């Protein structure tokens, strides 16, 4: 765990050093410490105010946002995989992403100039679309008081397919806005602002605390719902809480950065392969690794064709997939996880 903390800190520093304009790592520290109240180190060293602006107004919020989004995706991926006892599950499995995409595309095409608290229509509609979808899916899957997870999964997949079709339909008629739509769906952290960080970080923290309080219950749920219930887990209540927490995480992540694939699917598997399925370790470790991974890949996305940028989703998959396959091969057996149940 300590190693993972170090990793994410290194990733943060690296992300602040590299970019279209390179800022030396010493200067990065000086600028950062300088901004703290009651501290001053700048004596003797000249720091360009442009660098200071780039670091504090562009790179730092972007790094923090990448950390929050990466952690949120990885943690919610871990929760969905555990809840559904299905290794194929990812943060988008029950249709949150499709709902968010529909909201976002709708906002882009209709050209709403709505703005609440400084936010444009696109993130607001995306968030609404995501949360709306999960509510519909939940109610579709409900049988009386209970929500069987398999029904939930299937209802989610059905809703996802339906909404994706609508998104494709809208995209087809997107005209000159096509570029914008496609780019949003590839996901990216370009243009991150402090304001986004201020909204995203509390969501990420709240969602994380909410799900991590139930790590022990999630462990029991891995043995199957009935067994968990025999062990004293109030399964229906726990499911509701976990769904709420992880849906908030996903919806917040998607609405700030579009659909970034792979992180949420692979990071939890990665941690499980190395450290086992105990969610009391899996959730914080996934948060740190997910954050670090997204910071690192986002930095690459900024650097490879600087001053232009690649969508970060492309990089995560290009780098993450081969590493994951390597790990699978090395471990040979994929028995750390039950099949579809």
């Amino acid at each position, binding site marked *: 765990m300590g190693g993972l903390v170090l990793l994410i800190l290194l990733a943060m520093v690296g992300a602040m050093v590299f970019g279209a304009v390179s800022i030396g790592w010493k200067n990065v520290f000086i600028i950062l410490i300088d901004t703290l109240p009651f501290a001053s180190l700048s004596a003797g060293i000249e720091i360009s105010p442009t660098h200071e602006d780039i670091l504090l107004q562009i790179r730092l919020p972007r790094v923090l946002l990448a950390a929050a989004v990466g952690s949120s995706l990885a943690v919610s991926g871990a929760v969905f995989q555990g809840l559904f*006892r299905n290794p194929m599950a990812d943060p988008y499995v029950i249709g949150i992403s499709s709902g968010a995409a529909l909201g976002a595309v709708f906002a882009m095409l209709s050209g709403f100039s709505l703005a609440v608290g400084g936010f444009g229509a696109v993130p607001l509609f995306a968030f609404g679309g995501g949360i709306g979808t999960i509510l519909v899916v939940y109610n579709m899957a409900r049988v009386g008081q209970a929500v069987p997870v398999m029904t939930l999964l299937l209802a989610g997949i059905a809703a996802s397919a339906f909404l994706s079709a609508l998104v494709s339909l809208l995209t087809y008629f997107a005209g000159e806005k096509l570029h914008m739509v496609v780019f949003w769906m590839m996901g990216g952290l370009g243009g991150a602002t402090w304001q986004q960080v201020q909204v995203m970080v509390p969501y990420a923290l709240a969602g994380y605390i909410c799900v991590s*309080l139930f790590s*022990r219950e999630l*462990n*029991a749920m*891995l*043995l*199957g719902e*009935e*067994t968990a*219930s*025999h*062990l*004293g*887990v*109030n399964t229906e209540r726990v499911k509701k809480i976990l769904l709420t927490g992880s849906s908030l995480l996903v919806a917040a992540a998607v609405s700030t950065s579009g659909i970034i694939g792979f992180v949420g699917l692979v990071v939890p598997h990665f941690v*499980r392969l190395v450290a*086992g*399925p*105990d969610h009391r370790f899996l959730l914080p470790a996934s948060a740190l690794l997910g954050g670090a991974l997204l910071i690192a890949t986002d930095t690459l996305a900024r650097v490879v064709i600087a001053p232009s940028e690649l969508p970060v989703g492309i990089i995560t998959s290009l780098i993450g997939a081969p590493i994951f396959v390597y790990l699978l091969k090395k471990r040979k057996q994929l*028995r*750390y*996880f*039950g*099949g579809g*149940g």
Partner: protein
Amino acid sequence: MGLNIEVHGLKLAYGAQPVLEDTTFTVERGDSVALLGANGAGKSTLLRCISRILKPTAGHILLDDQEIARLDSKEAARMMAVVPQETAADFDFSVEDIVMMGRFPYLKRFQKEDQDDREIVRRSMEMTGVTHLADRSIATLSGGEKQRVVMARAVCQQPQALLLDEPTANLDIGYQSMLLELAARLNREQKVTVIAAIHDINLAVHHFNRFILLAGGRVMAAGRAEEVITPENIQKSYGVPASTYRHPLHGVLQVSVVRGRNPDEKNNCGSEVHVIGGGEEAMPVFEMLNQSGCGLTVGPVSAQDSGCRFAHFHSLPVIIVPPFTSMNGAHRKEHLEQMRNADLVVVPPIPFGEGNLPIFDEVRVILKEGKPVYIIDLDGVEKRDYSGKARSLLEQMIQEGAVVLKSVEDLKAVITPGGGEQNE
């Protein structure tokens, strides 16, 4: 310790199909109860109601006079532990992790497992004999080992009642009795109330002291083995003819399904056969003749003999003599008549003693009258001879025309038309 479980007027249906219909019974503190019944009789459904997985549409379940629906999840898990038929376990939790999950109902949200919990885990693993597996991944264990780990977890829950739902269905006979013996030990030593749904009646009678027989979601019989496990009850609930007998070593009741005549059997022999005597080694002869559709008469046998039980079960004419006595004149005369009415007479591999040697006076009479007599397994006669006179007697009969057959298969060839040579 021990929990009083009262089930009253349960009703539950899957769709239009009623599964539990006014199910009512009481399990006393410290009882160990086997829940018997055919597939679909409602055993598992009933256990799933008690373990709060299913909610019955009507009726009450009381644990020590507390309605289970009102219990908090953790409170219920401190009272009851469940061992299901199978537990999904394809992930990398260690055995110790799995057993430790049995402490879940005792831990508050921010409470860590402490020394006491670890001690209870250690003792539970020791009792169920899985200590040496502690660090193994549950995914790498065999079915029998896995079930013992699940049992260890149940013990770790320190329950006052233990519910087992077909816990032995996928185990070999060694693990079957080991697992049920563990449940019986919890019941004996810690007075834990045990209820187990179980298919294998003959296994259940070894490990439980009370029995509840379910049929169509109702309690058909409840009580001691002798009150519940009767041929009539088995016939009514499982729909198969059955007979009961005492286990030769343990004396517990055992059940076995009895084959009736197979109506599709082509080789109906059509002749009347009389079989002499009984005893276990003669049973294959009775069974074969009956299956082949022969008219069968039996005698003389004592009332406790397996041949006598066979004759009673299939309502065959039988001559019964009191045990430990020789036959009187009336019996011998009746026997002679019976043999005369038959088309052929069979001497199966029976034991020979001073008591039954006189029977063969009559056999020789009908042999002289020209009735075919078949002796099965002449070579093995010394092992069954307690009089020392059997071989010479049988050899005398062979000279008088009796035919020796090696085995019951040869007899089948004789009585089946076209299947073998007909004597005379």
